[in-house]
Every structure is written in structure tokens, then in C-alpha cells.
């Protein structure tokens, strides 16, 4: 065949090297992130009706959330128990995976009239931090656009009950809103496509 075996093996070796990403200690980002999909959807695109989408979430929001679950400072049903299974480094690795996914807005059942009314409240009270209908991952405020309504409602209930700490600016705004206004603005976020 006129083919030098040693050279061939070396060449094949270089082909494999080129095709292999750097091997890090521990499980890869996709290996860990894929374990979330059974509840949060493939690549973090949740099919609902309550589990939030993770796709496109900012790294800092994901990290802060998971660390708060781990430390028990954020109310949870099950995430506190799951978050305790990961080191901070592993959490950061998963955060990178979900931040790398495109933002996903689900088709969320909502009340259209409330959503329309909520748009005004949004402009007045929320838009400063939750830019572009709550769809900007860069604002570290979590993605609210196209999020599942029960999850938005649970989150707000926890904030209002004092079980989850609100940033000062948010607390100031929420205080001014009636329950009906809050209900409307959550429907607004859920309605965002």
C-alpha cells in the first residue's frame, strides 16, 4: 500500500486531537445540564405547566439561584435538595451551558385581557430592570418573558410573603402595586412571545 504505518498512526492521532475539545476534570457541561431536562425540558426549554425555562438564563442568575437553593435562602419544593448535589464549580459549569442556549419563550396559557392591562403596569413599574418585556438575559433579573405562569405566581407569592428577598428597587415597586396589578403583570410576562 506504500503507506508508512508509523506516520499514519501519528497523523490519525493528530486528527483525533484536533477533533477533541479540551478534557476537563469531572463531568462535561452538557453531561450535567442534560440531567435537568427531565423537569426543565431539553436544553432548558420547558414544556410546562410550571417548571421554568432555563434556556438563555444569564450565568449570574443561574449561579445565584442554585447557590441560594443550596444554602436554603430561597424557598423550594425540590430544588434545595437537588442543588446540594453540586459544587459551586459544577453549578458554574451548568450556568455556562444554559447561558449559551437561545432564550426560549414558551406558549404559555394566560388571560389576554389581564396581559393587556399588565402591559401598563409593566411600563410603569418593571421595565427599568426587566428590559424588553422581561426577555433580556443580560439584566441578571431572570427571564420572565414566556415563563410558565404558575412559576411566576409562586415566585411572586414567595417575594410578597417575605420568604424570598427582593432587591430594594423591586420591593419599592411591588409595595405600590395591588394584587390585581401584580396578577395582570404576571400574565403580561407569560404572554410575551
Amino acid at each position, binding site marked *: 500500500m506504500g503507506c508508512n504505518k508509523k506516520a*499514519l*498512526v501519528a497523523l490519525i492521532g493528530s486528527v483525533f486531537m484536533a477533533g477533541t475539545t479540551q478534557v476537563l476534570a469531572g463531568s462535561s457541561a452538557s453531561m450535567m445540564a442534560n440531567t435537568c431536562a427531565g423537569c426543565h425540558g431539553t436544553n432548558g426549554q420547558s414544556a410546562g405547566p410550571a417548571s421554568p425555562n432555563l434556556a438563555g438564563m444569564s450565568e449570574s442568575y443561574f449561579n445565584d439561584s442554585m447557590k441560594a437553593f443550596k444554602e436554603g435562602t430561597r424557598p423550594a419544593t425540590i430544588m434545595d435538595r437537588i442543588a*446540594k448535589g453540586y459544587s459551586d464549580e459544577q453549578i458554574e459549569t451548568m450556568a455556562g451551558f444554559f447561558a449559551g442556549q437561545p432564550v426560549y419563550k414558551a406558549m404559555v396559557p394566560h388571560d389576554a385581557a389581564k396581559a393587556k392591562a399588565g402591559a401598563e403596569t409593566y411600563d410603569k413599574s418593571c421595565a427599568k430592570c426587566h428590559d424588553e418585556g422581561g426577555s433580556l438575559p443580560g439584566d441578571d433579573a431572570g427571564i420572565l418573558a414566556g415563563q410558565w405562569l404558575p412559576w411566576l405566581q409562586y415566585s411572586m407569592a414567595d417575594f410578597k410573603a417575605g420568604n424570598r428577598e427582593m432587591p430594594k428597587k423591586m420591593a419599592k415597586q411591588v409595595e405600590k402595586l395591588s394584587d390585581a396589578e401584580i396578577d395582570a403583570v404576571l400574565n403580561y410576562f407569560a404572554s410575551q412571545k
Partner: protein
Amino acid sequence: MANFTRRKFLQVTGGAVAVSSLGFPAIVGAASKKVVVVGGGVGGATAAKYIRMADSSIDVTLIEPNTEYYTCFMSNEVLSGHRTMDSIKVTYDGLKGHGVNVVHDTVTDIDAAGKKVMTAGGKTFAYDRCIVAPGISFASNIEGYDEAAMKTMPHAWKAGEQTVILRKQLEAMDDGGVVAIAAPPNPFRCPPGPYERACQIAMYLRAKKPKSKLIILDAKDKFSKQGLFMQAFERHHAGIIEWVSAEKGGKVTRVDAATNTLYVGDTAHKVAVANVIPAQTAGAIAIKAGLTDDKGWCPIDGRSFESTIHKNVHVIGDASVATPLPKSGYAANSEGKVAAAAVVDLLNGREPGDPALVNTCYSVVGPDDAISVAKVYDLKDGKLNGVEGSGGLTSKDSSPEMRAREVDYAYSWFANIKKDSWG
């Protein structure tokens, strides 16, 4: 790589035969890599999808007899009338969309040495790697419980026709009748399943046939999420559910299908509806293919889920010995992804990376009341390991508000795991 010319590339691919004889896996430009997945339940479907998502150059064939599949998870809600059979039905269209070649046929044997799979339809499928996800088969621990008895004393432990039989019997039963669930010995598919089932059926009885009773005749003295289930029995189902441990006379040894009677030794329980869940082993094809150990389950390597008995064959889901992971749907989904990643790595000449797994399992135990168990798993000293400090059960003291949220998250689990596996 910069001076990797077309000529050199041709030299390399031209040398593919020599390379193969040196023991290298297939290389760039070589014939496509073939994976055959045996079984289209949650594990098999997930593995097939995730291989295609990671490397679309791999040719994946999934062989499954049924064109429509009914999930075991949430089938207990069909028994209570909370949901329809349609809501637990999945098809294989989603997998086809990922480029999986779906074949509806029954695998009759696996030739691990010859790397091929044979079917009842007379076809042979060659593979580079085979993933076997055969689910469970039933062992004969109960005298008289044969194929014919299953039609009148359904196990309903594989969803579908069996679920329908049991639901119809519950509907036809007179108020005041006794329903018996014969719970199996360990290890078995879905450890909390029989007890969630009891809760679901009890909800139906309380609403429609309030004079009726449900008795759990158990082959064990303790069971999964026991404290939480006992709390639910008392909180929601007092006066309906009675649990009888093996020690207290719960271990069913014989049935008489003609009279709908379960026997614990000489003690007869003649009941209106008998749900008999026998002891279990790995699915029949795993036994036929010699993938099982002396206990009837398939030993695997925790990194790749490759069989420790046959090379190039991976076993996932309920059939595998993945201890400390339970035999659950979520575990099968998680194992499917680990096996998929390992197969993609191996077919591309890489060592499989470190696996990461999770189990999350919900039981809906009463109106607006669900409980859960979770755990994170990794590989430690070459063995699957539950990460210390992770997971555990819903607190017995969790508030009604949080229990109601768990119902919503249970339904989210269901919607997402269906889509993640078959969608």
C-alpha cells in the same frame, strides 16, 4: 493540521482498512457508524435521541414492537379517572424527526460476538454499538399467576391494555367491594408505584364508591417513601387503605384467578378487584442475549453503561444494575443520556467522560398533595455513587401550599420527561 492537504486526507482514508486492523475505531470518511437501540421505552428513546443530537453522522436504528407506547408514569392517574389513556400515550414521530430510523419489530436475539440483532420479522441489523433498554419481565413468585390470570387479575405494571383492564374493573365494581394490591418484593420497577397507586385508587373509591376498601398485601416489611405514604394514608385515605406488611401476613404466595382469590399461605383474600404485581427481572431479550447475572438483572460499567458481560452492548433502564440509582423513569432517562454520550465518545475514538445522573420521582398521594424524592449521582472509584448531602424526600412537615406546588411540578416532570425522551 494547517498543512493537512487533500492528498494526505486521501492517503488517510485510503488506509482505513489498515487502521481498523490496528484496532482503531472508524475514522473520518469511513463508513457510517451504526447504533441499534433495542426497546423504545423512556431509556431507549432518550438514548436514541441524544445520540442523534450529539452526532448526526451516527446511524441510529431503534427497534420497538409497539407503534404507540403508554408511559407507566402517571398511569396510576388513569386508574383513578384523573386522566385518560390518551394523555399517557406517546408515538415515535418525534424520534423520526431527529433522524432515528424507527423499526416496529420484536428483537428475538442479540449476537454480541457478531455484533448484530435479529428480529421476529426475519431481519438482521448490524451494529458498532448496541443499546439494550428492555424494561422488565415477570418472575413466577406467585403460584397460579400465569398469562391467563393476568387478564383477570391485572398487574398493570406495564402500561397499556393492562391499565385499561384494571380501570374497567374498578369502574364495574360494586360499592362496598374490596380492592387488593399485591405489592412485589425488591428490586422492582418504580419502588413508590404500588403505594401511589393505592392513593389514586382510594381517591376514586372515596368519590364514587365510599363504602369500599383497599388492602395492600405486601411482600416486604418496608417500602419507598414509607413515612410520607403512611402520612397520606392517614391524612387523605383513612378508613379506606390498609397496608399489610409481609411480617403481618401480606406476602401473597398463590392466586386463584377463577375465584379472584389471593392466598397468603392458607389465608384466603377473596376480593372484588385484584391487582397482582409479581416479582421482576430484566426484560426477556436481556435474558435471551445472556446479559443478565444470576439474579436476573444486567451488570454494567457505571461510566458507560456497557455490559460487563458482553462488549459493545450497553444496558440502561430498569433492566440494568445501576445501584444506587432506583429503577425509575427519570433514572432511565438519565442513564439513556450517559449511555448516549459514552457511545458517541467511543465511536469517535474518545474515552467516555465522567457521567452525571439525577433521579427525581413524584407521587401524587391526594387532592393537591404530591411528594417527591430526588438524588444526584456521579462516579466514585469507578462505581455509581449517590452524592453525599444531595437529594432526599419531601419534608413530612411541608406546608399544604408547598404540597400543592409539588403537584404542579409533578405534572411538569411528566410533560418534560415525555418530550425530552420521545419528542
